[in-house]
Protein backbone atom coordinates (compact mmCIF):
# COMPACT_ATOMS: atom_id res chain seq x y z
CA UNK A 1 0.00 0.00 0.00
CA UNK A 2 2.73 2.44 0.95
CA UNK A 3 4.51 1.89 -2.33
CA UNK A 4 1.19 2.12 -4.12
CA UNK A 5 0.38 5.63 -2.95
CA UNK A 6 2.94 7.53 -5.07
CA UNK A 7 1.94 5.35 -8.00
CA UNK A 8 -1.72 6.21 -7.53
CA UNK A 9 -0.90 9.87 -7.16
CA UNK A 10 1.18 9.86 -10.33
CA UNK A 11 -1.64 8.14 -12.15
CA UNK A 12 -4.02 10.73 -10.78
CA UNK A 13 -1.82 13.51 -12.07
CA UNK A 14 -1.69 12.10 -15.58
CA UNK A 15 -5.42 11.39 -15.81
CA UNK A 16 -6.58 14.58 -14.19
CA UNK A 17 -5.15 17.12 -16.61
CA UNK A 18 -8.13 19.23 -17.63
CA UNK A 19 -8.49 20.42 -21.21
CA UNK A 20 -8.96 24.14 -21.69
CA UNK A 21 -11.97 24.37 -23.96
CA UNK A 22 -14.48 22.68 -21.66
CA UNK A 23 -16.80 24.54 -19.31
CA UNK A 24 -17.15 22.26 -16.28
CA UNK A 25 -20.43 23.08 -14.58
CA UNK A 26 -21.26 21.84 -11.08
CA UNK A 27 -24.81 21.09 -9.95
CA UNK A 28 -26.61 18.59 -7.71
CA UNK A 29 -28.88 17.21 -10.43
CA UNK A 30 -31.53 16.69 -7.79
CA UNK A 31 -33.29 20.05 -7.49
CA UNK A 32 -36.15 19.99 -9.98
CA UNK A 33 -37.07 22.00 -11.94
CA UNK A 34 -33.67 23.73 -11.86
CA UNK A 35 -31.65 20.57 -12.32
CA UNK A 36 -32.57 16.92 -12.16
CA UNK A 37 -31.34 13.45 -13.14
CA UNK A 38 -33.27 11.37 -15.64
CA UNK A 39 -32.55 7.90 -16.99
CA UNK A 40 -33.28 8.41 -20.68
CA UNK A 41 -31.44 10.72 -23.05
CA UNK A 42 -33.41 13.58 -24.63
CA UNK A 43 -32.70 16.51 -26.95
CA UNK A 44 -32.00 18.88 -24.08
CA UNK A 45 -30.42 16.53 -21.51
CA UNK A 46 -26.65 16.18 -21.10
CA UNK A 47 -24.95 12.96 -19.97
CA UNK A 48 -23.60 12.73 -16.41
CA UNK A 49 -20.34 10.87 -15.82
CA UNK A 50 -21.73 8.74 -12.98
CA UNK A 51 -24.73 7.62 -15.03
CA UNK A 52 -27.98 9.17 -16.24
CA UNK A 53 -28.70 12.49 -17.88
CA UNK A 54 -29.04 15.99 -16.47
CA UNK A 55 -31.73 18.41 -17.56
CA UNK A 56 -33.54 21.41 -16.11
CA UNK A 57 -33.53 25.19 -16.20
CA UNK A 58 -29.91 25.33 -15.02
CA UNK A 59 -28.75 22.85 -17.66
CA UNK A 60 -30.46 24.78 -20.45
CA UNK A 61 -28.99 28.09 -19.27
CA UNK A 62 -25.55 26.44 -18.93
CA UNK A 63 -25.77 25.23 -22.53
CA UNK A 64 -26.62 28.71 -23.74
CA UNK A 65 -23.66 30.16 -21.84
CA UNK A 66 -21.28 27.52 -23.21
CA UNK A 67 -22.57 28.13 -26.74
CA UNK A 68 -21.92 31.86 -26.38
CA UNK A 69 -18.42 31.24 -25.05
CA UNK A 70 -17.71 28.64 -27.72
CA UNK A 71 -16.88 26.03 -25.07
CA UNK A 72 -17.85 22.39 -24.79
CA UNK A 73 -19.83 21.63 -21.67
CA UNK A 74 -19.45 18.99 -19.00
CA UNK A 75 -21.92 18.46 -16.16
CA UNK A 76 -20.21 17.55 -12.89
CA UNK A 77 -22.83 16.12 -10.54
CA UNK A 78 -21.78 17.17 -7.04
CA UNK A 79 -23.53 17.21 -3.67
CA UNK A 80 -24.64 20.72 -2.62
CA UNK A 81 -22.14 20.90 0.26
CA UNK A 82 -19.25 20.12 -2.11
CA UNK A 83 -20.12 22.66 -4.82
CA UNK A 84 -18.31 25.71 -3.46
CA UNK A 85 -15.21 23.70 -2.53
CA UNK A 86 -15.18 22.18 -6.01
CA UNK A 87 -15.23 25.66 -7.50
CA UNK A 88 -12.62 27.14 -5.19
CA UNK A 89 -10.21 24.26 -5.75
CA UNK A 90 -10.70 24.37 -9.52
CA UNK A 91 -12.44 21.03 -10.09
CA UNK A 92 -15.24 22.92 -11.81
CA UNK A 93 -15.40 26.29 -13.60
CA UNK A 94 -18.90 27.39 -12.62
CA UNK A 95 -21.79 26.56 -10.29
CA UNK A 96 -25.13 26.70 -12.08
CA UNK A 97 -27.28 25.05 -9.48
CA UNK A 98 -30.13 27.30 -8.43
CA UNK A 99 -27.75 29.08 -6.06
CA UNK A 100 -28.67 32.48 -4.62
CA UNK A 101 -25.90 35.10 -4.41
CA UNK A 102 -25.98 35.62 -0.63
CA UNK A 103 -23.50 37.88 1.13
CA UNK A 104 -22.01 34.91 2.98
CA UNK A 105 -21.28 33.04 -0.25
CA UNK A 106 -19.84 36.20 -1.81
CA UNK A 107 -17.07 36.09 0.77
CA UNK A 108 -15.74 32.95 -0.90
CA UNK A 109 -16.84 33.10 -4.54
CA UNK A 110 -18.03 35.64 -7.12
CA UNK A 111 -21.42 35.63 -8.78
CA UNK A 112 -22.61 36.62 -12.25
CA UNK A 113 -25.71 38.72 -12.83
CA UNK A 114 -28.91 36.87 -11.89
CA UNK A 115 -30.28 34.43 -14.44
CA UNK A 116 -33.54 33.76 -12.66
CA UNK A 117 -35.79 35.66 -10.29
CA UNK A 118 -38.32 33.69 -8.33
CA UNK A 119 -41.33 34.91 -6.46
CA UNK A 120 -42.78 33.51 -3.25
CA UNK A 121 -46.11 31.74 -3.31
CA UNK A 122 -48.19 29.87 -0.70
CA UNK A 123 -49.07 26.22 -1.33
CA UNK A 124 -52.60 25.34 -0.09
CA UNK A 125 -55.16 22.54 -0.38
CA UNK A 126 -57.43 22.84 -3.41
CA UNK A 127 -60.54 22.36 -1.27
CA UNK A 128 -59.64 25.04 1.32
CA UNK A 129 -61.02 28.57 1.45
CA UNK A 130 -57.50 29.94 1.04
CA UNK A 131 -57.23 28.57 -2.49
CA UNK A 132 -59.13 31.64 -3.69
CA UNK A 133 -56.89 34.13 -1.84
CA UNK A 134 -55.22 36.93 -3.81
CA UNK A 135 -53.40 39.00 -1.17
CA UNK A 136 -51.45 38.45 2.05
CA UNK A 137 -54.44 39.91 4.01
CA UNK A 138 -56.59 36.98 2.84
CA UNK A 139 -54.32 34.66 4.83
CA UNK A 140 -55.12 36.39 8.14
CA UNK A 141 -55.72 33.69 10.76
CA UNK A 142 -54.24 30.90 8.64
CA UNK A 143 -51.72 28.39 10.00
CA UNK A 144 -48.66 28.94 7.81
CA UNK A 145 -45.16 27.51 7.95
CA UNK A 146 -42.06 27.23 5.75
CA UNK A 147 -38.78 25.40 5.50
CA UNK A 148 -36.36 25.65 8.43
CA UNK A 149 -33.41 28.06 8.04
CA UNK A 150 -34.74 29.72 4.90
CA UNK A 151 -35.90 33.26 4.23
CA UNK A 152 -39.26 31.68 3.32
CA UNK A 153 -39.90 31.37 7.04
CA UNK A 154 -38.90 34.88 8.06
CA UNK A 155 -41.25 36.56 5.56
CA UNK A 156 -44.34 34.87 7.07
CA UNK A 157 -44.52 37.71 9.63
CA UNK A 158 -45.57 39.98 6.76
CA UNK A 159 -49.01 38.30 6.79
CA UNK A 160 -51.24 40.26 9.20
CA UNK A 161 -52.75 38.09 11.97
CA UNK A 162 -51.07 34.90 10.79
CA UNK A 163 -50.80 31.87 13.08
CA UNK A 164 -47.11 31.16 12.60
CA UNK A 165 -46.34 27.44 12.87
CA UNK A 166 -43.03 25.76 13.74
CA UNK A 167 -40.67 25.60 10.76
CA UNK A 168 -40.36 22.21 9.07
CA UNK A 169 -37.37 20.37 7.77
CA UNK A 170 -38.28 19.33 4.23
CA UNK A 171 -40.89 19.99 1.58
CA UNK A 172 -42.26 16.45 1.73
CA UNK A 173 -42.99 16.87 5.46
CA UNK A 174 -44.83 20.12 4.76
CA UNK A 175 -46.79 18.44 1.96
CA UNK A 176 -47.82 15.66 4.34
CA UNK A 177 -48.76 18.18 7.06
CA UNK A 178 -50.74 20.26 4.57
CA UNK A 179 -52.60 17.27 3.10
CA UNK A 180 -53.45 16.08 6.61
CA UNK A 181 -54.82 19.50 7.61
CA UNK A 182 -52.22 20.21 10.30
CA UNK A 183 -51.36 23.47 8.50
CA UNK A 184 -53.27 25.65 6.03
CA UNK A 185 -50.34 26.43 3.78
CA UNK A 186 -46.60 26.78 3.41
CA UNK A 187 -44.41 29.36 1.72
CA UNK A 188 -42.35 28.22 -1.26
CA UNK A 189 -40.73 29.60 -4.36
CA UNK A 190 -42.84 29.24 -7.47
CA UNK A 191 -40.86 26.46 -9.25
CA UNK A 192 -40.80 24.31 -6.12
CA UNK A 193 -44.55 24.88 -5.68
CA UNK A 194 -45.21 23.86 -9.29
CA UNK A 195 -43.28 20.64 -8.76
CA UNK A 196 -45.17 19.89 -5.53
CA UNK A 197 -48.51 20.50 -7.22
CA UNK A 198 -47.56 18.32 -10.17
CA UNK A 199 -47.11 15.24 -7.98
CA UNK A 200 -49.81 16.07 -5.42
CA UNK A 201 -53.08 16.72 -7.28
CA UNK A 202 -54.95 17.70 -4.09
CA UNK A 203 -52.78 20.83 -3.75
CA UNK A 204 -52.58 24.16 -5.52
CA UNK A 205 -50.71 27.39 -4.88
CA UNK A 206 -51.58 31.06 -4.50
CA UNK A 207 -49.40 33.64 -6.23
CA UNK A 208 -49.55 37.36 -5.66
CA UNK A 209 -49.59 40.33 -8.00
CA UNK A 210 -46.65 42.76 -7.78
CA UNK A 211 -46.90 44.79 -4.58
CA UNK A 212 -49.45 42.60 -2.81
CA UNK A 213 -47.07 39.71 -2.07
CA UNK A 214 -44.07 39.14 0.19
CA UNK A 215 -41.14 41.52 0.16
CA UNK A 216 -37.73 39.83 0.25
CA UNK A 217 -34.09 40.64 -0.36
CA UNK A 218 -33.02 40.13 -3.99
CA UNK A 219 -29.95 38.29 -2.66
CA UNK A 220 -32.40 35.57 -1.58
CA UNK A 221 -34.86 35.51 -4.46
CA UNK A 222 -32.47 35.70 -7.39
CA UNK A 223 -30.25 32.94 -8.70
CA UNK A 224 -26.85 33.50 -10.26
CA UNK A 225 -23.88 31.62 -11.68
CA UNK A 226 -21.12 31.04 -9.13
CA UNK A 227 -17.54 31.55 -10.37
CA UNK A 228 -14.13 31.57 -8.72
CA UNK A 229 -13.01 34.85 -7.13
CA UNK A 230 -11.49 37.18 -9.70
CA UNK A 231 -12.20 34.80 -12.57
CA UNK A 232 -12.19 36.23 -16.07
CA UNK A 233 -15.23 34.03 -16.77
CA UNK A 234 -17.53 36.38 -14.83
CA UNK A 235 -17.58 39.09 -17.50
CA UNK A 236 -17.97 36.55 -20.30
CA UNK A 237 -20.83 34.81 -18.52
CA UNK A 238 -22.56 38.14 -17.85
CA UNK A 239 -22.28 38.94 -21.54
CA UNK A 240 -23.80 35.57 -22.43
CA UNK A 241 -26.61 36.02 -19.88
CA UNK A 242 -27.41 39.50 -21.19
CA UNK A 243 -28.12 37.92 -24.56
CA UNK A 244 -30.95 35.86 -23.04
CA UNK A 245 -34.03 38.09 -22.83
CA UNK A 246 -36.50 38.06 -19.94
CA UNK A 247 -39.17 36.48 -22.17
CA UNK A 248 -36.72 33.80 -23.23
CA UNK A 249 -35.99 32.99 -19.57
CA UNK A 250 -39.69 32.59 -18.81
CA UNK A 251 -39.97 30.33 -21.86
CA UNK A 252 -36.99 28.22 -20.76
CA UNK A 253 -38.44 27.80 -17.26
CA UNK A 254 -41.83 26.83 -18.71
CA UNK A 255 -40.16 24.30 -20.99
CA UNK A 256 -38.14 22.89 -18.07
CA UNK A 257 -41.28 22.58 -15.93
CA UNK A 258 -43.02 20.77 -18.76
CA UNK A 259 -40.05 18.48 -19.39
CA UNK A 260 -39.38 17.45 -15.77
CA UNK A 261 -40.08 13.76 -15.25
CA UNK A 262 -42.82 14.38 -12.66
CA UNK A 263 -44.80 16.39 -15.23
CA UNK A 264 -45.45 13.39 -17.48
Amino acid at each position, binding site marked *: MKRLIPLLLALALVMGVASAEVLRVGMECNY*APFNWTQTEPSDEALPIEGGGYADGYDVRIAKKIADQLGYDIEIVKTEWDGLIMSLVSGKIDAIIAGMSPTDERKLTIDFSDPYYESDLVIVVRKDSAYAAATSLEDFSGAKITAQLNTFHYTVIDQIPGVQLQTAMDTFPTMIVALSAGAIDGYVSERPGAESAVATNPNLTYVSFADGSGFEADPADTTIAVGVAKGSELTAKINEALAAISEDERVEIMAAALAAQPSAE
Partner: protein
Amino acid sequence: MPTTFFGWVGFLAGKYGPLFLRGTGTTLAVALSGTVLGFLLGLLVAIGRTIPLGPRAKWWKRVPVKILNGVLGVYIEVFRGTPMIVQAMVIYYGALQYLGLDMPRFVAAIFIVSINTGAYMAEIVRGGIISIDRGQTEAARSIGMTHWQTMTSVVLPQAIRNIMPSIGNEFVVNIKDSSVLNVISVTELYFQAKSATGTYYKYFEVFFIVALIYLALTFTVTRLLRFIERKMDGPENYTIHGSQSDSRAAIPVRKED
Protein backbone atom coordinates in the same frame (compact mmCIF):
# COMPACT_ATOMS: atom_id res chain seq x y z
CA MET B 1 -48.74 8.87 -12.17
CA PRO B 2 -49.12 6.18 -9.48
CA THR B 3 -51.31 6.95 -6.48
CA THR B 4 -50.30 4.42 -3.80
CA PHE B 5 -47.08 4.03 -1.82
CA PHE B 6 -46.15 0.74 -3.48
CA GLY B 7 -47.36 2.07 -6.80
CA TRP B 8 -44.72 4.79 -6.49
CA VAL B 9 -42.13 2.28 -5.26
CA GLY B 10 -42.69 0.15 -8.37
CA PHE B 11 -42.71 3.18 -10.66
CA LEU B 12 -39.50 4.66 -9.24
CA ALA B 13 -37.76 1.26 -9.15
CA GLY B 14 -38.56 0.78 -12.82
CA LYS B 15 -37.62 4.32 -13.77
CA TYR B 16 -34.43 4.68 -11.71
CA GLY B 17 -33.51 0.99 -11.51
CA PRO B 18 -30.54 1.28 -13.92
CA LEU B 19 -29.17 4.32 -12.03
CA PHE B 20 -29.64 2.61 -8.66
CA LEU B 21 -27.80 -0.45 -10.00
CA ARG B 22 -24.97 1.68 -11.28
CA GLY B 23 -24.79 3.47 -7.94
CA THR B 24 -24.79 0.08 -6.21
CA GLY B 25 -21.83 -0.97 -8.37
CA THR B 26 -19.90 2.16 -7.40
CA THR B 27 -20.75 1.70 -3.72
CA LEU B 28 -19.66 -1.93 -3.77
CA ALA B 29 -16.45 -1.23 -5.72
CA VAL B 30 -15.42 1.57 -3.35
CA ALA B 31 -16.36 -0.39 -0.21
CA LEU B 32 -14.68 -3.61 -1.34
CA SER B 33 -11.40 -2.10 -2.53
CA GLY B 34 -11.37 0.32 0.41
CA THR B 35 -11.81 -2.52 2.89
CA VAL B 36 -9.20 -4.79 1.28
CA LEU B 37 -6.59 -2.03 0.89
CA GLY B 38 -7.47 -0.66 4.33
CA PHE B 39 -6.98 -4.13 5.81
CA LEU B 40 -3.53 -4.51 4.20
CA LEU B 41 -2.59 -1.03 5.40
CA GLY B 42 -3.87 -1.88 8.87
CA LEU B 43 -1.81 -5.07 8.91
CA LEU B 44 1.40 -3.20 8.11
CA VAL B 45 0.67 -0.49 10.65
CA ALA B 46 -0.15 -3.03 13.36
CA ILE B 47 3.02 -5.01 12.64
CA GLY B 48 5.00 -1.78 12.88
CA ARG B 49 3.28 -0.82 16.11
CA THR B 50 4.03 -4.15 17.79
CA ILE B 51 7.80 -4.30 17.10
CA PRO B 52 9.17 -5.38 20.49
CA LEU B 53 11.93 -3.37 22.17
CA GLY B 54 13.91 -5.38 24.69
CA PRO B 55 15.36 -3.58 27.70
CA ARG B 56 18.84 -3.86 26.15
CA ALA B 57 17.92 -2.56 22.68
CA LYS B 58 20.58 -0.18 21.32
CA TRP B 59 19.75 3.52 20.67
CA TRP B 60 20.04 3.05 16.88
CA LYS B 61 17.20 0.58 17.09
CA ARG B 62 15.25 2.25 19.88
CA VAL B 63 15.04 5.71 18.22
CA PRO B 64 13.65 4.69 14.79
CA VAL B 65 11.17 2.29 16.39
CA LYS B 66 9.95 5.06 18.72
CA ILE B 67 9.64 7.50 15.80
CA LEU B 68 7.77 4.93 13.70
CA ASN B 69 5.47 4.26 16.63
CA GLY B 70 4.79 7.95 17.07
CA VAL B 71 4.07 8.55 13.38
CA LEU B 72 1.74 5.56 13.14
CA GLY B 73 0.01 6.64 16.35
CA VAL B 74 -0.65 10.10 14.91
CA TYR B 75 -1.98 8.52 11.70
CA ILE B 76 -4.43 6.35 13.64
CA GLU B 77 -5.61 9.17 15.91
CA VAL B 78 -6.10 11.65 13.08
CA PHE B 79 -7.92 9.34 10.66
CA ARG B 80 -10.01 7.65 13.33
CA GLY B 81 -10.77 10.91 15.08
CA THR B 82 -12.06 12.97 12.14
CA PRO B 83 -15.19 12.32 10.04
CA MET B 84 -14.66 10.71 6.63
CA ILE B 85 -16.67 13.49 4.96
CA VAL B 86 -14.09 16.00 6.22
CA GLN B 87 -11.18 13.79 5.10
CA ALA B 88 -12.79 13.47 1.66
CA MET B 89 -13.10 17.22 1.20
CA VAL B 90 -9.66 18.03 2.58
CA ILE B 91 -7.84 15.34 0.59
CA TYR B 92 -9.70 15.74 -2.70
CA TYR B 93 -10.13 19.50 -2.88
CA GLY B 94 -7.15 20.39 -0.68
CA ALA B 95 -4.72 18.38 -2.82
CA LEU B 96 -5.72 20.39 -5.88
CA GLN B 97 -5.96 23.78 -4.20
CA TYR B 98 -2.73 23.65 -2.23
CA LEU B 99 -0.60 20.97 -3.92
CA GLY B 100 -1.86 21.24 -7.49
CA LEU B 101 -2.65 17.53 -7.45
CA ASP B 102 -5.77 16.76 -9.50
CA MET B 103 -6.92 13.25 -8.52
CA PRO B 104 -9.63 11.50 -10.52
CA ARG B 105 -12.58 11.25 -8.16
CA PHE B 106 -12.82 7.46 -8.22
CA VAL B 107 -9.13 7.05 -7.32
CA ALA B 108 -9.57 9.67 -4.60
CA ALA B 109 -12.63 7.83 -3.28
CA ILE B 110 -10.79 4.52 -2.93
CA PHE B 111 -7.76 6.27 -1.44
CA ILE B 112 -9.90 8.04 1.17
CA VAL B 113 -11.88 4.95 2.18
CA SER B 114 -8.67 2.86 2.34
CA ILE B 115 -6.72 5.28 4.47
CA ASN B 116 -9.71 5.82 6.78
CA THR B 117 -10.37 2.09 7.11
CA GLY B 118 -6.65 1.47 7.61
CA ALA B 119 -6.69 3.49 10.82
CA TYR B 120 -9.51 1.39 12.27
CA MET B 121 -8.02 -1.84 10.93
CA ALA B 122 -4.67 -1.07 12.55
CA GLU B 123 -6.30 -1.10 15.96
CA ILE B 124 -8.42 -4.15 15.13
CA VAL B 125 -5.32 -6.07 13.98
CA ARG B 126 -3.38 -4.91 17.04
CA GLY B 127 -6.21 -6.30 19.17
CA GLY B 128 -5.92 -9.58 17.26
CA ILE B 129 -2.15 -9.70 17.73
CA ILE B 130 -2.25 -9.13 21.49
CA SER B 131 -5.00 -11.74 21.81
CA ILE B 132 -2.46 -14.41 20.79
CA ASP B 133 -0.65 -15.77 23.81
CA ARG B 134 2.78 -14.18 24.39
CA GLY B 135 4.23 -17.68 24.80
CA GLN B 136 3.82 -18.30 21.07
CA THR B 137 5.76 -15.14 20.18
CA GLU B 138 8.46 -16.04 22.70
CA ALA B 139 8.70 -19.57 21.31
CA ALA B 140 9.00 -18.26 17.75
CA ARG B 141 11.67 -15.73 18.74
CA SER B 142 13.59 -18.36 20.68
CA ILE B 143 13.96 -20.53 17.58
CA GLY B 144 15.44 -17.49 15.81
CA MET B 145 12.47 -16.05 13.89
CA THR B 146 12.51 -12.31 13.19
CA HIS B 147 9.57 -10.07 14.17
CA TRP B 148 8.31 -10.22 10.55
CA GLN B 149 8.56 -14.02 10.40
CA THR B 150 6.90 -14.41 13.79
CA MET B 151 4.05 -12.22 12.64
CA THR B 152 3.47 -13.74 9.20
CA SER B 153 4.00 -17.40 10.13
CA VAL B 154 2.74 -17.68 13.68
CA VAL B 155 0.71 -14.80 15.05
CA LEU B 156 -1.21 -13.29 12.13
CA PRO B 157 -2.76 -16.50 10.75
CA GLN B 158 -4.45 -16.96 14.12
CA ALA B 159 -5.05 -13.27 14.77
CA ILE B 160 -6.73 -12.72 11.40
CA ARG B 161 -9.13 -15.58 12.03
CA ASN B 162 -10.03 -14.01 15.37
CA ILE B 163 -10.65 -10.54 13.91
CA MET B 164 -12.74 -11.71 10.94
CA PRO B 165 -16.00 -10.58 12.63
CA SER B 166 -14.53 -7.08 13.09
CA ILE B 167 -13.34 -6.99 9.48
CA GLY B 168 -16.89 -7.86 8.49
CA ASN B 169 -18.12 -4.93 10.57
CA GLU B 170 -15.75 -2.58 8.77
CA PHE B 171 -16.93 -3.83 5.38
CA VAL B 172 -20.56 -3.26 6.29
CA VAL B 173 -19.75 0.19 7.68
CA ASN B 174 -17.90 1.06 4.47
CA ILE B 175 -20.84 0.01 2.30
CA LYS B 176 -23.02 2.49 4.15
CA ASP B 177 -20.50 5.25 4.89
CA SER B 178 -19.23 5.52 1.33
CA SER B 179 -22.37 7.63 0.84
CA VAL B 180 -20.49 10.66 2.18
CA LEU B 181 -18.30 10.58 -0.94
CA ASN B 182 -20.99 12.39 -2.92
CA VAL B 183 -19.36 15.62 -1.72
CA ILE B 184 -16.52 14.80 -4.10
CA SER B 185 -18.91 14.01 -6.95
CA VAL B 186 -18.79 10.22 -6.58
CA THR B 187 -22.25 9.10 -7.67
CA GLU B 188 -22.78 6.13 -5.37
CA LEU B 189 -26.10 4.60 -4.40
CA TYR B 190 -27.24 7.21 -1.88
CA PHE B 191 -26.51 10.09 -4.26
CA GLN B 192 -28.48 8.40 -7.03
CA ALA B 193 -31.32 8.02 -4.54
CA LYS B 194 -31.23 11.72 -3.73
CA SER B 195 -31.49 12.46 -7.44
CA ALA B 196 -34.69 10.46 -7.65
CA THR B 197 -36.13 12.22 -4.59
CA GLY B 198 -35.15 15.64 -5.90
CA THR B 199 -36.86 14.94 -9.21
CA TYR B 200 -40.13 13.47 -7.95
CA TYR B 201 -40.30 14.86 -4.39
CA LYS B 202 -41.05 11.34 -3.15
CA TYR B 203 -38.73 10.59 -0.23
CA PHE B 204 -40.08 7.57 1.62
CA GLU B 205 -40.72 5.60 -1.56
CA VAL B 206 -37.18 6.11 -2.86
CA PHE B 207 -35.47 5.46 0.43
CA PHE B 208 -37.58 2.33 0.89
CA ILE B 209 -36.05 0.95 -2.33
CA VAL B 210 -32.56 2.08 -1.41
CA ALA B 211 -32.78 0.67 2.10
CA LEU B 212 -33.69 -2.69 0.58
CA ILE B 213 -30.66 -2.53 -1.73
CA TYR B 214 -28.32 -1.64 1.15
CA LEU B 215 -29.80 -4.44 3.24
CA ALA B 216 -29.36 -6.95 0.42
CA LEU B 217 -25.73 -5.83 -0.01
CA THR B 218 -24.79 -6.02 3.65
CA PHE B 219 -26.68 -9.28 4.18
CA THR B 220 -24.85 -10.94 1.27
CA VAL B 221 -21.50 -9.63 2.46
CA THR B 222 -21.96 -10.85 6.03
CA ARG B 223 -23.03 -14.32 4.77
CA LEU B 224 -19.95 -14.45 2.52
CA LEU B 225 -17.66 -13.52 5.39
CA ARG B 226 -19.19 -16.21 7.60
CA PHE B 227 -18.50 -18.69 4.80
CA ILE B 228 -14.86 -17.55 4.64
CA GLU B 229 -14.59 -17.86 8.42
CA ARG B 230 -15.76 -21.46 8.26
CA LYS B 231 -13.23 -22.17 5.49
CA MET B 232 -10.47 -20.70 7.65
CA ASP B 233 -11.53 -22.90 10.55
CA GLY B 234 -10.77 -25.97 8.42
CA PRO B 235 -12.65 -29.27 8.50
CA GLU B 236 -14.24 -30.30 11.77
CA ASN B 237 -12.84 -33.84 11.54
CA TYR B 238 -9.17 -34.31 10.69
CA THR B 239 -6.20 -36.62 11.22
CA ILE B 240 -2.89 -35.81 12.90
CA HIS B 241 -0.07 -37.67 11.16
CA GLY B 242 2.91 -38.70 13.27
CA SER B 243 3.31 -38.61 17.03
CA GLN B 244 6.27 -38.11 19.40
CA SER B 245 6.84 -41.84 19.65
CA ASP B 246 5.80 -43.08 16.20
CA SER B 247 6.30 -41.15 12.97
CA ARG B 248 3.79 -43.38 11.15
CA ALA B 249 0.99 -42.80 13.66
CA ALA B 250 -2.33 -41.39 12.41
CA ILE B 251 -4.55 -39.93 15.12
CA PRO B 252 -8.11 -39.15 13.93
CA VAL B 253 -9.74 -36.18 15.63
CA ARG B 254 -13.55 -36.18 15.62
CA LYS B 255 -15.81 -33.25 16.35
CA GLU B 256 -17.14 -33.38 19.89
CA ASP B 257 -20.91 -33.54 20.10
